[in-house]
C-alpha cells in the first residue's frame, strides 16, 4: 500500500498541476486543490544561506572583535584622560565654605541678592575653547510629572496658548487670575545663579574673563522649537496680560533686555534649562570661553576668583551646586567609562577566544582518536 502510494506520488507534480487546472473550471462535484502554486517562493524553495556556528567562523570572530575593541578602548581612554576638567562645589554646606552664609540666610522674599566668592587655582593651562557648566546633584529633572509640566505650543509662540496655557502646567498655570508665561514646573524652577570668572595675575589684579552667552543651546531648539509670540517687537507689549512664574524674580521679557534675540522665550539659558536632564546628577552649559588667537592658552594656570550671585536654593532637598570648567574633544566631555568598557570587553572576548580555541583543539584530538573503525 505504501509502495503504491510512493509509486503514484512519483508523478504527483504533473498530475496535481492538471488537477488544479481542471478543477478551477470544473463542475460542482470537483474538489478544488488547495495546494499553492508551484513557484519557488510559495513552495519554500528559495536560495538560502544557512548560518552555522562552526569553529572556523566563531573563533576568528571572537579574536577579531577583541583586536578591534582593545585599540578603540585605548584611544577612548587616552582621549578622555587628555581632557582637562575642574570642578568647584559652591553649595555652602560646610561652615568654612565661602557661600555658607548665603545658603543659610536664603529666603524667597529677599530683594537683595547674596554674593559670595570662591577662590581656586588651576594647575594646568586650558587650551582651545573652554566650556563653563553648572552642575546640580540630587535634582530629579526626569520625574514624570515634572517632565510633562510644560506647554510646547506656548513656547513655540502660539498666541492662543500664551493666553490659555495647557492643563499639564497645573498648578503653575495661572497666578492671580493671569496666565503664567512660561507655564509649568520646569520653567518655574529655572536656574538663576549668576557666575562670573576673574583671573588674578601676579600683580593681584582681577581681570574679568569674557564669557559668551550665545551658542549654548541646540540650533533646532533655538530656531524651531522656541519662538517668541509674534505681534510687537517690544516684548513687554507682547507679553501683556500674562504674569511671571511664581519663583522668578524677573518676568520673561527681562531675561536679557540688551539683546533682542536672546530675550523672551528664546533666551538661551532658558532653553538650556528647559531641555530636561535624564539623570539626577547633571550639568548644563552655562557659558563658553572662546579660545584666544595665537598660542596663549585660553585659561592660563594660576589663581582665579569665581563670583556667585546665590539665588538658587538647593539645600532644602539636599542638592548640591557646582561649577565645572572643561575642555572638549571629539568624544565629548571627560568620561572614562567608554574607554574602560571597550578595553574590558575586548580583553574578555580575546580571552574567551583563546579558551575556546584550546577546548576546540583538545576536543578535536580526542574526537579523532575515539572514532570507531568502519
Amino acid at each position, binding site marked *: 500500500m*505504501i*509502495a503504491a502510494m*510512493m*509509486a503514484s506520488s512519483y508523478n504527483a507534480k504533473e498530475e496535481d498541476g492538471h488537477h488544479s487546472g481542471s478543477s478551477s473550471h470544473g463542475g460542482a462535484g470537483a474538489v478544488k486543490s488547495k495546494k499553492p502554486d508551484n513557484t519557488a517562493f510559495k513552495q519554500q524553495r*528559495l*536560495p*538560502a*544561506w*544557512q*548560518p552555522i*556556528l*562552526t*569553529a572556523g567562523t*566563531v573563533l576568528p*570572530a*571572537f579574536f577579531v572583535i577583541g583586536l578591534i575593541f582593545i585599540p*578603540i578602548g585605548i584611544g*577612548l581612554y587616552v582621549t578622555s584622560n587628555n581632557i582637562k576638567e575642574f570642578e568647584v562645589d559652591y553649595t555652602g554646606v560646610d561652615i568654612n565654605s565661602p557661600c555658607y552664609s548665603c545658603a543659610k540666610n536664603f529666603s524667597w522674599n529677599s530683594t537683595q541678592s547674596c554674593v559670595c566668592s570662591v577662590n581656586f587655582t588651576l594647575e594646568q593651562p586650558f587650551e582651545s*575653547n573652554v566650556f563653563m557648566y553648572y552642575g546640580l546633584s540630587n535634582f530629579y529633572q526626569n520625574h514624570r510629572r515634572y*517632565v510633562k509640566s510644560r*506647554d*510646547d*505650543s506656548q513656547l*513655540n509662540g*502660539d498666541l492662543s496658548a500664551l493666553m490659555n496655557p495647557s492643563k499639564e502646567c497645573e498648578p503653575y498655570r495661572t497666578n492671580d487670575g493671569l496666565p503664567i508665561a512660561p507655564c509649568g514646573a520646569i520653567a518655574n524652577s529655572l536656574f538663576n545663579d549668576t557666575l562670573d570668572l576673574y583671573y588674578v595675575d601676579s600683580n593681584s589684579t582681577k581681570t574679568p574673563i569674557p564669557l559668551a552667552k550665545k551658542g*549654548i*543651546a*541646540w*540650533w*533646532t531648539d533655538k530656531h*524651531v*522649537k522656541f519662538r517668541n509670540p509674534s505681534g510687537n517687537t517690544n516684548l513687554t507689549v507682547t507679553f501683556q496680560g500674562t504674569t511671571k512664574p511664581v519663583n522668578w524674580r524677573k518676568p520673561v521679557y527681562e531675561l536679557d533686555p540688551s539683546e533682542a534675540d536672546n530675550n523672551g522665550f528664546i533666551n538661551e539659558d532658558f532653553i538650556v534649562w528647559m*531641555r*530636561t*536632564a*535624564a*539623570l539626577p*546628577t547633571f*550639568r*548644563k*552649559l552655562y557659558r*563658553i570661553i572662546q579660545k584666544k588667537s595665537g598660542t596663549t592658552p585660553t585659561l592660563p594656570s594660576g589663581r582665579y576668583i569665581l563670583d556667585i550671585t546665590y539665588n538658587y536654593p538647593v539645600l532644602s532637598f539636599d542638592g548640591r551646586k557646582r561649577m565645572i570648567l*572643561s575642555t*572638549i*574633544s*571629539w*568624544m*565629548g*566631555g*571627560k*568620561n572614562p*567609562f*567608554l574607554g574602560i*568598557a*571597550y578595553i574590558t*570587553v575586548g580583553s574578555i572576548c580575546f580571552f574567551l577566544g583563546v579558551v*575556546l580555541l584550546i*577546548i*576546540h583543539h583538545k*576536543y578535536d584530538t580526542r574526537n579523532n582518536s575515539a572514532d570507531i573503525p568502519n
Partner: protein
Amino acid sequence: MNLYFSKKAFVRCMMHSCYSSLILFFIPWAAMQDTVRDDGKDIADYQSFALLAQTCLLIAVSIQMCLDTHYWTAINQFFVWGSLAAYFAVTFTMFSNGMFLIFTSIFPFIGTARNSLNQPNVWLTIFLATLLCVLPVVAFRFILIHYPVKLFPIQIYKVRKEGLPAPAPRRPPHRRISTRRSGYAFSHSQGYGDLVTSKRFLLRLPLKNAEAHAALTDDADGFDHFRLKKCNLLTKYHKVSAIFPHPSRILHNYLNQRFVNTFFK
C-alpha cells in the same frame, strides 16, 4: 497540566532577558554620565537618552532575530534590515521640524535624532551595548552545539554503543519476505530517504529485464527457471542492499512492487 512547560527553558529565557535589560539600560547610563556633545552642548538630556536606549535595543533585537533564523533568504534579510531602516526613517520623521510644527504637543522630541545620532560617542555606545547583548548568546550556542561531550559524556557513549551496525544480511528463503530487523531506526545521520527516493536502486533492474524476459520465453519448465531468475533477482537485490546495510521495509516493498510490475503488468 503543564505537561509541555519546560521550567529549564523558562529560566533560561528569563536570565537572558534580565541580562539584556541590564545591559541595555546601564551601558547608556554609564556612557551618558557627565557627557556632552563634541561642541560642548547637551547630550545627556531625557530625550537623547531615551533615543539612545531605544536604538541599542532595536539593533540588538534585529541581530538576535538573524541569529535565530535558520535559513537566510533574500526576503528574510530584506525584512529584518528593512525594519531597522524603517525605524530610523520613522524616528527622523517623528523628530522632524514639520511634525513638530503641525502637531506640537504630540511630537515634542524635535531635533533629538539629528543632534544625538551625529555623535561618534553615541554610536560607540550603541555598538558596545549591542555586542554585549549578542556575544553571550553566540558563545553559549557555539559551546552547546560543538562540545556536548563536556556536558553529557555518558549519554553519548551509550548511544555509540547501541548504534553498532546490524549483522550481515543472509540469503532469505525465496518464498518468504525477509524478516530481517530493520536497522533504519538506528541511523544517526539523515538516513536513506534521499537514496530511496532517488532512482539509483533502479539502475540495475533494466539489465535484469532482458534476462527475465529471456526466462519468460523459455519452455514450460521455464517456470523453474523463472523462479530461479526471481531468486537471482532477489539475490542481486540483497547484494545491493548489502552495500547499504540497513534497508527499510518500505524499500523492500517498493522494489518488490517494481519487480511485480515489471513481470506481471
